[in-house]
């Protein structure tokens, strides 16, 4: 049976307390530092007092402090609500309210700190500000905010809620994926096993921890007793590559746009990346030429192509790097403990070569959507997760993704609900109706396009619409292209034909 995260962190800290757990900017936290800081957070929370399963929001960029707070919440018997740091305060407040969180721990330098604090106060949610020190004083600073009393961690049961991750939903219906302690433990153990992670590994992380892929990268490295090096972003690709070289990084994970940015202007051969033993890629299909460039520029690294979704904690399948050439285009086979089948709309399993909906079951499948039994019932049926993704298997059981049955736009690796963007635009005076669709984008795979029918006599311009979206939506949800039209294309029954908008 897989080890729960708290126990895994304790084991790593007991095995080699001085080993480096997290490197961020100019600060390094050892396993002992991290476990101690997390136990201090647990103490502060336990003093409140806090009920078992209480939701605690986290709004922080990737940092050792985020990690201490995440484990501290679990250790106090709570569940984390890891918030997307790119979202606006209004959306964050709605998610916190929906989660029933009583407290949110917020980076006091976050751009949305003040507006969120005001909204949280209005809804009776306490705000605990934290300073994200990034130099050698970071731990002393953290101790000054959380005190120096450590609290023994409360053991969790496998079925207990550990975290809620909000994925794209509409304004009135945020979708909170409920992940249990058992889900995290099972997915973490399976990933550690297939990547062969061990204490000497040094992974470089550019993926946000609030996102299931970044979350899995964090916990797998800590469970393995490895070192995780945090890089804030890939805006300056040559700095990321130099960091990989200087830190003797052994592993790197990205989504297709991460690799597009790295390969866009830099030549990997210009850096000594001989320490890199593996790369992982998830979050949508990576074009074949990019895979080939990556392999030719970094021949010593094994490339794992993977597939998953938040509802499965993170990962469902991976392709063995040795088979990359022979099975190019496939996302591989299920990881240990996971079963996958491809079904037609009646639920019958399809033979190889036939496309249908991908269904999955295993110890990593979520508990459901928080406070939404109806949405849960739609995707968790007959003991299987109905992923909403379309795919097929080949004769040897390798899975291929063919598209998505559910209307979602994938911008970079983020899922965006067209309805959420439409709702935001509809709120703008002068908009009669609006429809949103995906258009191809060289870097991100897809970008968002909105077609707006203005109200008679209304005065609207593109900048005004984009500014409104930026105020209410995360930046990646702002449509790249906006067009005005006199009507929207519809079927005879009146349904909007999104595909005709592109």
């Amino acid at each position, binding site marked *: 049976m897989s080890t729960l995260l708290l126990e895994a962190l304790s084991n790593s800290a007991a095995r080699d307390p001085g080993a480096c757990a997290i490197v961020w900017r100019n600060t390094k936290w050892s396993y002992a530092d991290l476990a101690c800081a997390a136990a201090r957070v647990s103490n502060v929370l336990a003093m409140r007092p806090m009920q078992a399963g209480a939701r605690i929001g986290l709004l922080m960029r990737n940092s050792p402090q985020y990690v201490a707070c995440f484990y501290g919440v679990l250790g106090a018997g709570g569940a984390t609500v890891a918030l997307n740091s*790119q979202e606006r305060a209004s959306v964050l407040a709605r998610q916190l309210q929906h989660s029933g969180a009583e407290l949110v721990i917020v980076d006091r330098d976050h*751009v949305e700190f003040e507006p969120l604090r005001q909204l949280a106060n209005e809804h009776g949610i306490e705000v605990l500000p934290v300073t994200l020190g990034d130099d050698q004083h970071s731990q002393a600073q953290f101790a000054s905010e959380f005190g120096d009393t450590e609290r023994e961690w409360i053991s969790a049961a496998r079925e207990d809620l550990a975290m809620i991750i909000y994925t794209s939903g509409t304004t009135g219906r945020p979708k909170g994926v409920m992940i249990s302690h058992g889900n995290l433990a099972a997915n973490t153990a399976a990933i550690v096993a297939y990547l062969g992670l061990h204490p000497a590994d040094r992974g470089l992380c550019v993926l946000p921890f609030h996102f299931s892929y970044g979350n899995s990268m964090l916990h797998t490295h800590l469970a393995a007793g490895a070192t995780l090096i945090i890089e*804030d*972003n*890939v*805006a*300056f*690709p*040559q*700095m990321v590559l130099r960091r990989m070289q200087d830190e003797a990084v052994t592993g790197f994970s990205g989504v297709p*746009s991460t690799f597009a*940015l790295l390969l*866009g*202007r*830099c030549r990997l051969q*210009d850096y000594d990346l001989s320490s890199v033993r593996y790369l992982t890629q998830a979050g949508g299909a990576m074009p074949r030429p990019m895979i080939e460039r990556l392999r030719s520029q970094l021949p010593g690294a094994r490339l794992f192509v993977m597939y998953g979704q938040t509802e499965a904690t993170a990962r469902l399948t991976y392709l063995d790097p040795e088979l990359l050439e022979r099975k190019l285009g496939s996302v591989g086979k299920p990881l240990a403990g996971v079963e996958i089948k491809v079904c037609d709309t009646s639920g019958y399993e399809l033979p190889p070569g036939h496309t249908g909906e991908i269904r999955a079951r295993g110890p990593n499948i979520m508990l459901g959507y928080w406070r939404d039994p109806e949405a849960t019932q739609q995707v968790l049926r007959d003991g299987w997760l109905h992923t909403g993704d379309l795919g097929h298997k080949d004769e040897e059981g390798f899975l291929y993704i063919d598209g998505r049955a559910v209307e979602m736009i994938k911008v*970079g690796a983020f899922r965006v609900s067209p309805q959420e963007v439409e709702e935001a635009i509809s709120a703008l005076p002068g908009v009669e109706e609006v429809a949103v669709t995906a258009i191809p984008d060289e*870097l*991100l795979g897809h970008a968002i396009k909105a077609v707006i029918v203005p109200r008679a006599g209304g005065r609207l311009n593109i*900048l*005004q619409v*984009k*500014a409104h979206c*930026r105020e209410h939506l995360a*930046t*990646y949800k702002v449509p790249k292209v906006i067009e005005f039209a006199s009507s929207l294309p519809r079927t005879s029954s009146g349904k909007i034909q999104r595909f005709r908008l592109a």
Partner: protein
Amino acid sequence: MTDDLREQVRAFILENYLFTSDPDALGLDDSLLGRGIVDSTGMLEIIFFIEEQLGVKVKDEEMIPDNLDSVNKITNFVASKRQAA
């Protein structure tokens, strides 16, 4: 001359990332990444803007926050490159 360049840079960022022409929406020293004005792909677009609209080639080693992470930094970087050319 530098003032014109500064306004050109500011106007580009205001129009493409803040979707406004109000200069007060962006301080000259505001961190573009820190304030969440641009993300990683936005930074790549700014580099294209510098190369294609301002006519200055950005070398790999010059792609650093000190040259690109605010209106003033971009302006100073472009001005010094033009001077050296």
